[in-house]
């Protein structure tokens, strides 16, 4: 029982002692985001494809195998395209994990290594690629997913160390483009508002556009990079709409745009 005066005093003292600690971290219910100057806002965190794929799995039972891309990729001579392709192939790895295709996962692990070598960051992913193979053999899909995420970060970190920041951004962009192609394909096949809402990524699209804008003039004028910027500017207004406003036609438009540009990343096409 806590009825005695002593208990009341002790309880009051305890409450008083707790107040400063509680006051230390009571977040305001509302903030003014414009109070944060540019220097106080970190660049956008780019999600990995599996963050989106995890939601698609909850919404239904996507046919992941149907999303897998056929064939092997050839290493381009153009470093920009190689960086885009590397991100694209890593994203493909996430699709192979979803479809639980261990042979395809291992093949993609080898492709990652080959492409990484072409842009001098092979060393950074050797261990990852071996681990991808081991975990695919063990059908440890959560582990493989983690290794692809790690490979993506490792190659980017290695490129940043080599002062290849622009190429590092292209790796992320290549991954996002392939992830978006797959997302739109699945959403189109079983259209739902919840699925379409996953495309509501306005800040991310603007971020990639800004990234290209800040690249060296030589890279910015690269025909493929320039074409991707055009594509982003077509996608931007669509994904800028509120999630519930993205129609099946919008989804198809984004799918067609990303599919075409990913085709160029993989095979070169006539724009480069």
């Amino acid at each position: 029982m806590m009825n005695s005066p002593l208990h009341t005093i002790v309880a009051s003292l305890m409450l008083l002692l707790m107040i400063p600690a509680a006051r230390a971290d009571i977040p305001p219910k509302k903030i003014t985001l414009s109070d944060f100057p540019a220097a106080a806002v970190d660049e956008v965190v780019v999600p990995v494809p599996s963050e989106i794929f995890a939601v698609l799995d909850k919404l239904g039972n996507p046919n992941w195998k149907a999303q897998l891309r056929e064939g092997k990729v050839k290493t381009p001579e153009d470093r920009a395209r190689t960086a885009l392709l590397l991100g694209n192939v890593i994203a493909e790895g996430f699709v192979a994990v979803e479809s639980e295709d261990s042979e395809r996962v291992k093949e993609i692990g080898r492709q990652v290594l080959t492409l990484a070598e072409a842009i001098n960051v092979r060393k950074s992913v050797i261990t990852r690629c071996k681990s991808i193979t081991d975990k695919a053999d063990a059908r440890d899909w959560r582990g493989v997913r983690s290794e692809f995420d790690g490979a993506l970060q490792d190659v980017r970190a290695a490129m940043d160390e080599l002062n290849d920041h622009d190429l590092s951004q292209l790796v992320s962009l290549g991954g996002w483009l392939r992830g978006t192609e797959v997302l739109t394909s699945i959403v189109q096949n079983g259209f739902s508002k919840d699925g379409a809402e996953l495309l509501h990524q306005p800040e991310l699209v603007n971020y990639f556009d800004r990234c290209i804008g800040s690249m060296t003039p030589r890279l910015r004028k690269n025909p493929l990079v320039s074409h991707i910027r055009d594509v982003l500017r077509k996608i931007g207004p669509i994904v800028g709409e509120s999630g519930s406003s993205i129609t099946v036609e919008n989804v198809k438009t984004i799918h067609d745009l990303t599919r075409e540009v990913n085709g160029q990343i993989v095979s070169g096409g006539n724009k480069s």
Partner: protein
Amino acid sequence: MKHFLNQLSSMQTFRLLFGVLLMCSVVPAQLHATVDDSVSFAYEAALPYYKQGFSIRKDAWGGDLGVHDKKAVSIQLFKGNTYWFLMATEVKGASLSVHIYDDKGDLVEGESWQKGRFAGARINPKSTGTYFAIVQILKSPEERTTWALVYGYK
């Protein structure tokens, strides 16, 4: 965006990390205050969530801030996932916080906690879009305090 230590990949690695952290705890003075150390602490904070099935991203974000300074990290979140954001510093005696706001500036986290040099916030986004993790140093014995933020999803 800054990319830091991204080597954790399994429970074994987490255990190894704990071993390293244990060794660090017996070092009498903090000789090298770096963001990388803070990243290790942030991953330590993420461990319980990893055990609950959250996939912890290999990317980490960080820097240094003065006491009461805030920074916003913009993030794309997807409705249908649950996210935990974990923040930490290697500065002993410091405390910090992380809270999640939507693009209108409304506090939208489901829960949050703060324990000394560690802090966490959970969100189940009601819609897909841009969110902001607002990080802050609440107190610190140092003028500038390094911090790191990681997140997990499931």
